[in-house]
């Protein structure tokens, strides 16, 4: 694969199409293949650059070492974008990759033209909660993590993945997932051992207000729980933002509705 050497690591990426660069950052258990279902439409007008974060496939990581951290992935993404010309680039992230993209926009707005956050993951601190509202539910992975870790360490990879996927998209979601999609999650299973200690900080109101990059939030119309809530709360405080909901889809909305997803993204990037 093509790689950029960033922060001592050869970061792999797939580059397709011509036009303004659109950097795509996958989420938990994803990799550069996460975006395969939308590469066709998006690459009609954009140079789509789909990265694999440190320790994700094509690396076969053994989970040894302590450099699977949110801060590391943010620093890697920044260093990667610095290598892409012409800047400033468009940046799109899904789930945990949305969290990363948000942090990049906070730290280095000079690198970005537009920002797309598809159900970004993360916790909300007290400044983002209504005073009398009940506390938000925890992130699905936080709930599932004990069972996920026990399963991986016991060699039950599919048990770990079932716990993860069902926590996000509901009971039976893992069983319904196409076999090809399941396999790509398996290929990254050991990253969850790193993620258990990734030291991710919650979002604050001041952080959301600091995002000046034009931002599109994308949600799945059928997503429930905290992943459905976080982007709505952030959107209220990101000044120059809009939200598109993808009907008939949950958290992996671009796999479920690739055409609608691309229409939303391409419309936003062209506006």
């Amino acid at each position, binding site marked *: *694969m*093509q790689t950029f050497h960033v922060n001592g690591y050869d970061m792999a990426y*797939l*580059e*397709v*199409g011509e036009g303004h660069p659109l950097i795509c950052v996958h989420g938990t258990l994803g990799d550069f*293949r996460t975006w*395969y*279902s*939308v*590469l*066709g*439409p998006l*690459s*009609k007008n954009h140079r789509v650059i789909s990265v694999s974060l440190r320790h994700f*496939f*094509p690396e*076969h990581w053994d989970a040894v070492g302590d450099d699977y951290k949110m801060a590391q992935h943010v620093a890697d993404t920044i260093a990667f974008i610095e290598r892409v010309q012409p800047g400033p680039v468009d940046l799109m992230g899904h789930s945990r990759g949305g969290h990363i993209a948000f942090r990049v926009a906070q730290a280095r707005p000079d690198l970005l033209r537009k920002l797309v956050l598809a159900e970004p993951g993360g916790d909300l601190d007290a400044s983002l909660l209504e005073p009398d509202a009940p506390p938000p539910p925890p992130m699905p992975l936080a709930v599932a993590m004990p069972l996920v870790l026990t399963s991986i360490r016991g060699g039950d990879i599919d048990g770990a993945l079932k716990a993860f996927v069902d926590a996000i998209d509901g009971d039976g979601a893992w069983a319904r997932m*196409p*076999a*090809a*999609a*399941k*396999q*790509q999650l*398996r*290929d990254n299973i050991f990253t969850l051992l790193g993620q258990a200690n990734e030291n991710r900080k919650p979002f604050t109101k001041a952080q959301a207000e600091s995002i000046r990059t034009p931002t599109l939030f994308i949600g799945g119309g059928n997503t429930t729980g905290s992943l459905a809530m976080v982007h709505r709360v952030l959107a209220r405080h990101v000044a120059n933002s809009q939200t598109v909901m993808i009907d008939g889809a949950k958290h992996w909305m671009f*796999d*479920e*509705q*690739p*055409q609608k997803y691309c229409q939303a993204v391409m419309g936003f990037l062209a506006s």
Partner: protein
Amino acid sequence: MQSLHVNGYDMPYLDVGEDRGRAPLVCVHGSLNDFRVWGCVLGPLTQRHRVIAVSLRHFFPDRWDGVGDTYSIAQHVDDVIAFIEKLDLGPVDLMGHSRGGHICFRVAQQRPDLLRRLVLAEPGGELDASLDPDYVGGPSPLLARFTASAEKIAAGDVDGGLAVFVDTLEGAGTWPRLPAMVKQNLRDNAYTLIGQVRDNRPPFSKADAESIKMPTLFILGARTKGLLPKVLHALAAHVPYSKTALIPNATHPMFEQAPQKYSEVVLDFLAS
């Protein structure tokens, strides 16, 4: 993407994994697919092999308009041969699915010096009289339906054309049941069907099969029906150093349906 300039065309490919002293495994997709179709087996296969998944001429990421005569088995065979030569990594292992299996078979016939081992996952094609006593000659009985499919696509009804094509191969009602991401990858390559219905590929003969001298693995989905299993069994009976692996509960896209089992049989074969 990375690409190699072959026969006047920049042929894109995805190159994943370390070579670990073994021959690289070059993968050739079938009709309506592209380099992405192998995504679901890249993980297991790259545990041991450097995997190079090509996109044939006019498939995504190219956006072809269906005009011209450069979509054919002969052209694609020439391109794969030139690609392997240009890679310059010595003899490779070559794997093809469906129409890609047909191409790999023809590469093995023409240039055995370029190959170490051959994997054919339900290769597409027809059988001539030497392999099929019922052979009547003429175009494929499915050609009329494929032509109808291509005409719909040329007229702008991409999903309608794809539905005809997929349902013809896999049974009525298959298209609506396909995962949305699979459908989208087919849409990205829909225009290649316009070239494909014009392509008049010769049938396989017994002499063709007997001429394949490298170790060959045929892979069959246990629930695949129709011509594909018939062609596979006929070829396997006459390719001298061949064996056949069956993927339980799978049909034509068997590696997408059973990526672990599929990878296991490929890895075992390449290691044996």
